[in-house]
């Protein structure tokens, strides 16, 4: 299986990554090499082996249901000091309307 240039552009758009034609071609080559590698791996017999959702075969540790944050007003001030624009405690972004 190999990708088309159109698919590369579409994936880039979905990820909001701007790519030039040259980059698109180069990326297509890279991705197709990865697909070739995957195809090679497909030859391995995986019958009866469950898929892993994570590279490490360990289970998630859980946190107790406790509020551990305090003085978030000060924290907000620190976060918003590096935000491009804020007002009344809100982060401002270009207008979004559905």
């Amino acid at each position: 299986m190999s990708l088309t240039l159109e698919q590369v552009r579409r994936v880039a758009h979905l990820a909001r990554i701007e790519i030039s034609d040259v980059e698109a071609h180069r990326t297509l080559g890279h991705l197709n090499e990865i697909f070739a590698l995957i195809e090679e791996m497909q030859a391995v017999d995986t019958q009866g082996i469950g898929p892993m959702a994570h590279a490490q075969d360990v289970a998630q540790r859980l946190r107790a249901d406790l509020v551990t944050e305090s003085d978030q007003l000060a924290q907000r001030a620190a976060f918003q000091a590096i935000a491009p624009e804020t007002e009344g405690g809100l982060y401002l972004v270009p207008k979004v309307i559905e």
Partner: protein
Amino acid sequence: MKQWEVVIGIETHAQLSTQAKIFSGSSTAFGSAPNVQANAVDIALPGVLPVLNKGAVVCAIRFGLAVGAEIARHSVFARKNYFYPDLPKGYQISQYEWPVVLGGQLAIQVGESEKTVSLTRAHLEEDAGKSLHEGLGPHFRECSGIDLNRAGTPLLEIVTEPDMRSSAEAVAYARALHALVRWIGICDGNMQEGSFRCDANVSVRPVGQPHFGTRREIKNLNSFRFMQQAIDYEVQWQIATLEDGGSIEQATVLFDPVSGETRAMRSKEDAHDYRYFPDPDLLPLAIDRSWVEQIRAQLPELPTAKRERLIADYGLSAYDARVLTSSLELVGYYEATVATAGQANAKSCANWVMVDLAARLNKEDREIGESPVSAEQLGGLIARIGDGTISTNIARKVFDFLWNGEGSSADEIIARQGLQQISDSSSLEMLLDELLAANPAMVAEFRAGKEKAFNALIGQVMKATRGQANPQRVSDLLRKKLG
């Protein structure tokens, strides 16, 4: 003319009643100043790692057990990728191929008939933040404001099969689900605050057609009334469109409560290409069976089982049992009332709770938990009706005293106010003799065959005793005297 069949499936987002967020230690409380409940994880600063809140998993398992679902042994969190300013990570942590809850069923009641709705799954996910488009400073002409307090609030998304065939069934399902999540204490069900919101997938097909029609999804229905209106409008719109020779395009629509219409949202072509993949920041969740059993042991008796027991043990009608089990608080109050009044008065307790108490609470816009009359006080009152100490009419007076806090118990009020029923024959007979002597006209009318005169005489006795005479006893004695 063609007959159409309506097909509805529902997705519900229930906000889970945890203290902290699903992946961070921020508070989930509603109504704080903007962004004060958003820490580094919630606003997605680089380098942060999510850590799963055990409380949210417990809620999901409780729900799964309550609907008879399979609880996954192994569950995985996935990234759902899309760009929106109230989602600072650029993805929502959700679940895709391996949700916590698989299958399950919920019984619903539509009019007199029962029906079972099958659930597909229920999965954990985080909520997004909120975008505000108006109402603040001058910048808001070109800008939207982002409040991330809600970002990371735990949600359980509950998905049904396309099992419902009318807006009435859809609303009955939503109500049953709403009652259940509150019953098992996993969601406060506050629809105004967005703690319980439904999306309805609606399609129509000619009766007999095996495959489903194209569906449109009505988003964010936050009241049962709107759900009914939105589905009814959508159904007639789809039928009208098809009958005019048009076709239905798959779309997401919003309901406008003002116009009563549904309208397609402008949707980007890529909107549904979420490119889910397992979140490498979170390890798979292992749910061992002993933990599940421990959670099962802590579940309250479920509504269906409770209803059956009320009918079997207390001889209540199916209707009464259903009304009383509309919430865990209400049925708890009822059972505590019976515990004091005695099982023999169980039916009377049901009437008092459902009629007298409910009317009073309703009038003052109070919840059962805010009743000034405790279950023990009401039970004590009903016991005194049951043993003939007071009549139902006098009991209503005593109830008023209790409601107004003028007395600690029915017994105390009855004694203080001298409200005991007069059942003693000799004093009643004396009273009757006086009355008959004073009302010869009525006596003559009764003897002439007018039953009305008899009732008027009883009325006189009740008036003379300020309602305290035992009406049955008075009636018996009077018949004897006149007969």
